[in-house]
Each structure stands twice: as C-alpha cells, then as structure tokens.
C-alpha cells in the first residue's frame, strides 16, 4: 500500500501543534508506515514570541523563551531542519535544502509572517522593534534603560501580528519610566493607525481612559508613510508628522519568502485561504494556517493554534475517508496586558465582536501562567482544558 505523506512547512506555533495533533490522531497509521508527517523548519530554535515583550520591556533573559524544535515534536513526527525554497501546489511537490525535491499528498503552509521595517522608507534605520528577533527586542531594553528625557513614540504599522502588542508596549514603557523615576521628563506618544487606541471598540473603551490617566498621548489615524531619520520625524499617509527622540515601531509585516517566491501569495505573500475550511483556495489537498494566511483576523498564536487543530481534523478525516469537513469559526482570545498587573482578553469569533470588560489581576496571572504552559501546550496535552475554556474552534459538516 502507498504511504500518504503530509508535509508541514514551518515548525512555529501552528506547524508544531498541527504535527503533534496529527501524530495523535494518526498514531497507528504512522507506526504502520501508512502515513508520514514531515515538518520543515529552517531555524534551530523555536522562539516563544510573546516573550519578546518581557525581553524588551522587563529586561528578561532571551534564553528562557526559546527551545530546539526537535524537543517539541512528538514521536512519530519527522523533522527536516532545512528551509523550503519552493512549493509547487499543482504538482504536489516542494524543494528544500537548495534543490532536493519531495512529493507530498497533503501540504500545510504554516510559514508565519515577517516584520519588515524595510517596507517603509527610513523605518529600519530610525526605529527599534520587538516583532522580529530576540536580539532586536533586547536593544529596546538597552535603549529604555538609558533614556532620561524626551519623547518616546510607539507606532503601529499595518498589517502586523498580535494586535494587543503595541498597546502593551505603551503601558509597559510608562510603567518602566515611572519605576526609573524619570516619567516626569519623558513624554510618551502612541501613534495608532485606527480611529482609536485599539481596533475593537469594546477594548478601546477600556484602554483609552487608562492612557489618559497615565498621561500618554494618543495620536489616532496615523498610518506611517516614511521616516526622516536625520530630522527625527515620522510622516503619515494622512499628511501629518510626528517628532521623536526614541522610536519604537511595530513594522508592517508580510508573508514568508517561500510563499512569495512560489507565486502563491502575491507580492506581500499572504496565502489566499478559505476562512472556514482553511484550504489554500483552489486546492483541497493544501491548507494554510496561522499568520501566513490572508484571512482578515488577528495574526496570533491562539489563531494559529485553533486553525492547526481544525486543519488536523480535516486532514485526518480526508485520509480516513470519513466525509467530515471541519470549519473554523474564527475564534480569537488574546491577552492584553495593561501594566500594574492587570490584563483583559480580546475574545470573539467571525460573528461575535470582542466585548468590553474590566481589566483584572486574574487575567494578568492567566497570561503569565500561559508563558510557562506554552511548551506543554505545543504537545497537545492541554487540549481538553483549552477546549473547555474556549469552546470548540470549528463546526463539523458532511461533504456533499
């Protein structure tokens, strides 16, 4: 009998959870050599990206937030620690390791998104960011530790991963400057691309009064156009300008190179994906999950997680021929830390918008706890708890 191969490109949050879920669902088939699950991951360390916030704004040690991918995959999953250079969806084949070829039966693109300051003239030179690497995040901590007086501008460019992260940065910069006793000489400005501080109304209603209380200036509808580093000025598409002494930017993101080079996601590399089935449009044997898709919801670990669970069910069902199709419901649930040990959770689905809620200590501790549970979560052993807490991420339908 022929072996069925599932190739997963990208072993970040989504790819790892998906591979482990498949290894549980199809354990027997894998042991009998009927199914093979292969993960391609080019990096030798898996970074827990929310840890960048602790590195940049709390001076945490980066080493605590990364692990080798091989330690995170369950037995039965094959790891190829190489970059995939092209994906050929029509011929079900990919190339990796500079020219080696592999055929597949099912493909999942879990290649994530890339913060790319170079997309905005002047931005790479002028700004620091915590959306690329741990080293970049560390530079923010060093700059903030030295900063004594002047204006810190925190600026968000669209699109980017983790919608709460800019506002978290704003509150934590405020907290840090207060702790260091220099807050009176430091002006903090948040330049938001939206009409308010946070895209979802209910959450903005909680965030904005808090910013006002802490003397943080909000500049709304400020979409960055370019930066003049010599004049230390940022200019917006809406025709405004903003002076800074220290610029912390959430750069615009794009999809992975392999997606762009394979002609899948246009110039910006967002993979055209059905928001419910998670199939790459036009291919029922290929899926995209997480930050890599063009689905207009939050690019977050929780979405990558819930999409991975949904896609794993669909692929297992296709292989086993059950006729069931799993449809993602757009569930999101992202923590937003507000400083002072308080947090809210931004929760919703494709049909339910995030609601207003008071910030709380409990939610803050839930976020902190999650930092530690992340590695266990990747293996899938916490799935029953997530399911009970969040509810099912999909609806089940029968084909035909």
């Amino acid at each position, binding site marked *: 009998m022929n072996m069925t191969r599932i190739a997963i490109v990208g072993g970040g949050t989504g790819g790892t959870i998906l591979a482990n879920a498949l290894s549980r669902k199809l354990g027997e088939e894998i042991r009998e050599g009927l199914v093979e699950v292969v993960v391609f991951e080019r990096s030798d360390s898996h970074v827990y990206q929310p840890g960048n916030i602790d590195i940049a704004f709390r001076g945490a040690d980066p080493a605590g937030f990364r692990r080798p991918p091989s330690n995170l995959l369950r037995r039965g999953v094959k790891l190829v620690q190489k970059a995939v250079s092209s994906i050929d969806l029509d011929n079900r084949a990919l190339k990796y390791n500079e020219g080696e070829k592999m055929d597949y039966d099912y493909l999942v693109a879990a290649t994530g998104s890339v913060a790319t300051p170079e997309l905005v003239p002047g931005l790479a030179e002028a700004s620091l960011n915590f959306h690329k690497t741990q080293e970049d995040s560390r530079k923010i901590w060093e700059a903030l530790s030295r900063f004594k007086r002047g204006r810190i501008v925190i600026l968000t460019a*669209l*699109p980017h991963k983790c*919608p709460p992260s800019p506002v978290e940065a704003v509150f934590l910069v405020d907290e840090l400057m207060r702790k260091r006793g220099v807050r009176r000489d430091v002006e903090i400005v948040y330049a938001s*691309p*939206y*009409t308010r501080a946070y*895209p*979802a*109304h209910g*959450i903005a209603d909680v965030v904005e009064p808090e910013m006002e209380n802490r003397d943080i200036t909000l500049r709304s*509808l400020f*979409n960055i*156009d370019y930066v003049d580093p010599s004049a230390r000025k940022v200019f917006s*598409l*809406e*025709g405004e300008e903003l002076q800074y002494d220290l610029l912390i930017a959430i750069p615009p993101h794009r999809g992975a190179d392999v997606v762009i080079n394979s002609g899948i996601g246009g*110039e*910006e590399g967002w993979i055209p994906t059905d*928001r419910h089935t998670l199939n790459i449009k036009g291919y029922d044997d290929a899926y995209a999950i997480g930050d890599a898709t063009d689905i*207009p*919801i*939050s690019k977050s670990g929780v979405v990558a997680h819930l999409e991975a669970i949904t896609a794993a069910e669909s692929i297992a069902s296709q292989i086993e021929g059950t006729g069931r199709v799993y449809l993602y419901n*757009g569930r*999101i649930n*992202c923590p937003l830390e507000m400083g002072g040990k308080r947090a809210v959770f*931004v929760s*919703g689905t*494709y*049909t339910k*918008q*995030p609601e207003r809620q008071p910030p709380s200590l409990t939610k803050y501790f839930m976020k902190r706890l999650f930092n530690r549970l992340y590695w266990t979560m990747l293996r899938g052993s916490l799935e029953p708890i997530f399911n009970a807490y969040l509810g099912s991420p999909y609806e089940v339908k029968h084909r035909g």
Partner: protein
Amino acid sequence: MRHVVDARGSFCPGPITELIKTYRKAQVGDEIELLATDPAAKSDVAAWAAKSGNEIVEMKEEQGYIRMIIRVSSKSK
C-alpha cells in the same frame, strides 16, 4: 482599477487594516470596494477618508454587511 477587499468577519484587527493594506498599493484614481460586518466600519472609514482626503463614493447596507466604495484621490505617490 477596482480593488475588492472582503473584511467581513473581522473585528480585530478589523476593516481598517485591510483597507490600508490595499491603499498602500493603490494608485490615484483607483477604487477600493470594502465589505465589512464590523458595525464600527462606517464611522471608522468615514473618519479615515475625511482625514486622509480620500473620497467615499458609496456606502450601502447590504444583507448582513456594509459595502463601501472609496476613491483614491489624495495619494502623493
């Protein structure tokens, strides 16, 4: 050229993100047709258009969603 942007089902980060993504690559004279279910879309897009000097050509309630057509009229490059 008409760009169709389907931001239905998105509340966070919502329609403005999809609009700006498309606006960055659009040319003066292009139209962006934006579909959204976020009830805040109307006022948000109107505020953005007013500030950025772009023109809203149409804003219409369809069954269960809002359709907006924005003409790109104020881009410097």
